[in-house]
């Protein structure tokens, strides 16, 4: 596949800790991906609009504030509503084990908790990019 993979990295919710998401963004760039970074405190609407306008293949969400069970499913819903049916959503942050099945059911395909390495994120993208439609 010759085309560039585009990834939106966004931080919904109220916490302002963006070190993790910035680190992953830089690592993704260094791995050859195009990363659109939208910054902290993004509303689900703003993230979904950005994902569509930027025509990204993946959306990576980062959240430390604990509101993931409300925000992540809402973001997936809005992305689908605006026509991003094949956009693959993954997430990272402090997310308790017990919430993971719920989030996966609601369209968050992979969840990387604080111990995860960048390689796991990169592998996830490589393994899933084949599914992309165009």
């Amino acid at each position, binding site marked *: 596949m010759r085309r560039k993979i585009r990834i939106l990295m966004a931080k919904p919710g109220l916490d302002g800790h963006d070190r993790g998401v910035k680190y992953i963004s830089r690592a993704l760039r260094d791995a050859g991906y195009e990363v*659109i970074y939208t*910054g902290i405190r993004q*509303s689900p609407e703003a993230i979904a*609009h950005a994902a569509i306008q*930027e025509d990204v293949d993946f959306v990576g969400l980062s959240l430390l504030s604990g509101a993931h069970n409300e925000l992540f499913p809402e973001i997936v819903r809005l992305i689908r509503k605006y*026509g991003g049916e094949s956009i693959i959503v993954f997430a990272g942050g402090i997310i308790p084990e017990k919430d993971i099945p719920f989030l996966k059911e609601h369209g968050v395909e992979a969840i990387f908790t604080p111990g995860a390495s960048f390689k796991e994120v990169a592998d996830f993208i490589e393994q899933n990019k084949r599914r992309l439609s165009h």
Partner: protein
Amino acid sequence: MKRLTEKILSGDVRAIARAISWIENDYAQKEQLIDDLYPHCGNAVVWGLTGPPGSGKSTLLNLLIARERMKGKRVAVIAIDPSSPFSGGAILGDRLRMQKHSTDSGVFIRSMASRGHLGGVAGATADAIKVLDAAGFDLIIIETIGVGQTEIEVVEMTDVVLLLLVPGLGDEIQALKAGIMEIGDIFIINKSDKDEAMKTKAEVEYVLSLNDNPRKDRPNPIFMTSAVLNLGIDELSTGIDLYIEELRVNGLIEDKRRKRIAREIRLMITAKIRREVEKQLGLNERIDSWVDQVYRRKRRPYAMINELSDTFFKKNRT
């Protein structure tokens, strides 16, 4: 294809975004798409906004877009950032500064990496402008850093070039003179909240006075703004409108657009032919072996490429 064209003409965001991806990835279908859209183009005004990294282009745009929205205009932005020369990847962060408009359906923002596409970023920009124009945006703004030939080519695809400078550039203004200063229509000294802003303005005035300005009777306008303090934005916004109105009245906008089309045709034809040549010669597959032969002095460079080009032309003569 017909469906995508119709969707774009009706302003469908998903379709517009997808079309720009086709352009960026240089898909063959993009040609038919652009040609189908072309009859619907010609209504949008296109600004180029350029200046050194960190000069405040995106922050200022955030405010200018708000002014244009109040005038009832639909606005599209293409924000171009450089790709990493090492990995080919990029971090595109301009959206971060244009948050005011993140849920406004009258604003479309697209980030583009400068080296992500085969046809060249200027060609991609020109095509993306057509998609956005056909989709009914009244104003299209291209943001790009003002260094390098590639970036200059990009802003040359626009109707009016806004050049952003900031205090503390020092000798850089002198250096800029050679390239980008010449294509600037409107000059903006941003970060006017900083010391030395007036000094920068005087420097810009001086450099401009050295230029062989084709319109000596009317010097290029210079504005002072502070995008963080929201100062000077109304004056700038009105100034840009006036400038474009003047271009229209005295027919200069037509000249500019003709020149732009000339540039585009040159770009398109050379890109097309180059690609065909590379394909027929099998350049990518054979380059290593050519390098090897030249490196080991088995062949002489001119003799080798002349032989290759002769073969190519012979084959294409019939």
